[in-house]
């Protein structure tokens, strides 16, 4: 029985010794033939159990769905949605069970009908990737798209993204667009939009509502405030972090509070911070893109470290040390067991001569303070910079990349300078 030659998406009948199954043949996965039965269930059958297979109906050509133009209200503020990927805008094909991405304004409004009541929606597909594949080139592509639209007068943007590296994207856009007077909200979904319980619609609606009603300039993130469908928070684009692998409220601001809260049911925006003044006469000036060839390392302090862990960075452009406590590394030869720590100290000193080596703390919350204990002082003496930083490791990483790309001569001087709010902290309002 040559099962392999059966055409995918054909209606077939497969017989085994005891039963026969009719359904749609789906692409093979592993050893099993996968069949979608008329009842809707998928089953896997082992070829060795199959005694007979017959094509009942050849694969049907899929008719493109009839498009219905949506009549949008032109008097509403324009919001441009740029899609980079993730499951925020996808729909199930119930025939095959596959999930298809949707991007045109009509399709987006088809998925999220309430958006058309909040704004005039325009949209563009920038990419369709998982966020954990992001490279600096992708951040530049998104920024260039926004810049091109800004030059045509657009100033309210939503960038949709997978959530794993969403905070890197938001941070990169914060720096790259620092000279472009637009408001950008990066929005993701923790539950994909194919399910009735998806958070995608509420996150998008709250982001749209915020952009449509506020003169926001800068980059933010809009996600659920709690696990309830009650309100979304607008978080600053820098020092924001995915702090849970699955909850709807996974994103938290680090060392500061949210900018605003948007209630879902009443569509009310409550500002929690003063927003940057918008100047509608400001013209887009220029992008300060990331150098796509940059190589920046990140090393996490831990017990039982080896000097070899610094072995591959000699040709790198920069390094982020994600340090313990206030900003320490295992560099003290406390006893015979710690002999290697002296070598680690030397490695850091060696690298800090060749490139900027910057400090961040693995406590995530709190300030780098390398003045308090001797390892911190020794590291400063070795050339590690960033004492006093309140940046998350990811923000420090992107900021270092941006400084190396745009202010290479001044990295050491500029690292602690505030560009887009990354050095502002509100310690009294710790939000964690």
């Amino acid at each position, binding site marked *: 029985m040559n099962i392999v030659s059966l055409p995918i998406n054909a209606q077939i009948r497969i017989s085994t010794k005891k039963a026969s199954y009719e359904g749609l043949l789906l692409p093979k996965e592993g050893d099993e033939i996968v069949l979608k039965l008329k009842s809707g*269930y998928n*089953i896997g059958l082992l070829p060795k159990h199959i005694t007979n297979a017959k094509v009942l109906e050849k694969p049907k050509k899929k008719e493109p*769905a009839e498009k219905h133009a949506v009549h949008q209200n032109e008097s509403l503020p324009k919001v441009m949605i740029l899609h980079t990927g993730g499951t925020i805008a996808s729909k199930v094909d119930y025939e095959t069970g596959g999930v298809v991405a949707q991007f045109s304004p009509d399709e987006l409004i088809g998925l999220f009908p309430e958006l058309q009541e909040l704004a005039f929606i325009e949209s563009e597909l920038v990419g369709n990737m998982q966020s954990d594949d992001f490279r600096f080139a992708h951040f530049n592509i998104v920024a260039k798209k926004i810049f091109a639209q800004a030059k045509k007068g657009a100033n309210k943007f939503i960038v949709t993204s997978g959530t794993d590296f969403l905070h890197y994207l938001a941070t990169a856009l914060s720096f790259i667009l620092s000279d472009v007077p637009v408001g950008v909200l990066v929005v993701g979904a923790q539950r994909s*939009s194919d*399910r*009735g319980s998806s958070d995608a619609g509420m996150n998008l609606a709250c982001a749209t509502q915020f952009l449509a009603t506020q003169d926001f300039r800068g980059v933010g993130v809009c996600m659920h405030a709690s696990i309830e469908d009650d309100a979304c928070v607008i978080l600053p684009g820098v020092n924001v972090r995915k702090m849970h692998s699955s909850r709807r409220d996974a994103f938290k601001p680090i060392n500061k509070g949210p900018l605003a809260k948007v209630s879902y*049911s009443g569509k009310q925006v409550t500002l929690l911070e003063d927003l940057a003044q918008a100047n509608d006469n400001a013209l887009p000036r220029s992008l300060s893109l990331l150098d796509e060839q940059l190589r920046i390392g990140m090393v996490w302090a831990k017990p039982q470290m080896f000097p070899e862990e610094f072995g591959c960075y000699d040709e790198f452009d920069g390094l982020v040390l994600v340090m313990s406590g206030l900003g320490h590394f295992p560099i003290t030869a406390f006893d015979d067991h710690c002999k290697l720590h002296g070598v680690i100290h030397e490695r850091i000193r060696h690298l800090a001569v060749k490139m900027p080596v910057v400090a961040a703390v693995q406590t995530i919350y709190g300030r780098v303070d390398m003045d308090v204990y001797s390892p911190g002082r020794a590291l400063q003496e070795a050339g590690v910079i960033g004492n006093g930083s309140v940046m998350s490791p990811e923000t420090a990483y992107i900021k270092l990349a941006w400084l190396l790309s745009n202010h290479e001569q001044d990295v050491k001087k500029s690292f602690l300078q505030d560009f887009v709010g990354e050095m502002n902290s509100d310690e009294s309002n710790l939000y964690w």
Partner: protein
Amino acid sequence: MAIPALKQDLSVAELKRIGLLSGLEIHQQLEGQKLFCHCPTAVRDDNPDFLVKRYFRALAGESGVVDAAALAEMKKRKYNVYQGYEDTTCLVELDEEPPGPVNQEALTAALQVAKIFDMEIIDQVRFMRKTVVDGSNTSGFQRTGLIAVNGSLETPSGLWVHVDSLCLEEDACKKVETKDDHEVYNLSRLGIPLLEVATGPDMKTPEAVAEVAEHIGMVMRSLPNVKRGLGTIRQDVNVSIKKGVRVEIKGAQDLRMVSTLVKYEALRQHNLLMIFDALEARRASVGKVVDVTDVFKHAEAKVIRGALEKQDVVLAVPLHSFGGLTGLETQPGRRYGAELSDHAKVMGVKGLFHADELPKHGISQAEKDAVFKQLGLQDEKDNFLLIAAPEAVARRAIAAAAERAQDFSLRKEVRMALPDGTTSYLRPMPGAARMYPETDVKPVLPDKENIVVPALLSERVAGLAKKFSLDTDMAKRLLKDGVDLDALTKKYTKVKPAFIVDLFYSVPALLKKKHNVEVDMSLYADELLARIDADEISKDAVPGIALLLASGKTVDYEKYKPISEKEIKEVIKEVIRKDPKAPVGALMGAAMKELGGKADGKLVMKLLQELTPK
């Protein structure tokens, strides 16, 4: 106008003639952990520790077109509130974390059922997401997997039925209450493993359906990890007659109801077909909705007066040539009018009136006449439906009832069982289930080779009854209560099986009757049996000791130590000496009282008979 002669009941022969066919879908809850997380399967109704509010999205239609109905639905902004508990709810039920791997005990139970019903087990089970729109699943779908197909079963009386499919799926949340703008659900039931067994439409009599349902229930209860008690097994029946359509009935409260449901549904379809024939013959038709509020300006009827005080409206729709039909009973106590009223109720009204039932409920003949007049209808020949409610609701509701009235055909639908065995309309039969793969759960390769099938409950009952000469009911009772007579007789070899049975049932019954004390003998049985086995107490002391134990008192077992035959003889002699003329019964009573339960009654009687002067 001829009125068709409807049936009030259908005999077996008539059911056969109209071609009754019925199938079953049985859902059995399993005990242990939930299907995709480690939370316990206890269904709770105590006060929740927390509430979570969620909105559900109407999913876009297949074509991606803006769905006006979906948008309208979302504009109503109905939401759901889920009740959870700190100790028995996790992020999986809250839809805040992907599901874990499938519960292996539940899968094992499914495979056992598959083997019992001689089914083909699927090589690779792929869990699916079945779209659920009512909010009873926090995810918006129910996880379900097809485990086996194409089996059969045979009942003890020899009925042979196809078992088409066996699925393993998640139970849904329990609905706690419905409010104007939201529904409240409890999360404790969500995710409990459910076995769903579906038979073919093979049963031709109501009794056969009940017999098969009972048999499947017995098979389920043979598994070691099924839940017991009210609501743990649910029977849905599918019913059709030859000229009718397939109707699914949910919510059968217990097995005894199943055959009545089937018969009444066959009756409903048969009678409705006769009404539809009459409507066709009369060339009946449904007119346009008319506002008749003015007729009821001085209404006596409470419902209408109350409505008008709230500025509601009274709407009527003319039913041309429907005279005398809405009052006919399609099922005992359920009229054709109720069939129409059900559709209005779904739209949010409490009910409607039809002309056949008037004057009644406070509506006068004059008002009825006035409505007939305003609608241009003739009494007797024509008919109307009447609804009093806020205008938007009233219009929606009367339109739904009118729409059903002008369709002279049976519809595939889901109906709800009512306590008397009749049914009411619930919703249209869903189309092919909207299912897509549950990509968060890896496909499962069931181990088909090592399935150990437990002995069926029926076989175990028969075996136990035979071995210990018990009647079947007692054997069933022991199995149901988990009293392992076999093990107990092996452990306590000196104690007779009949006494063990008495210990569990007669002793508590006696204590209840005499002292009104509830004794859970399973708590004390081992201690009592061990002491009897070791000759530390006599059997006659058991009720007294059990009473002390149940009231939480300490027992001085020394007091109950059986005394020697010699000592008993001494006591008996003393009793006889005191009253030598007394009859044996009186002597026995006196001796037992003197011995205070320390001696076995039979032995005392034997010695008494020996010692009584002949």
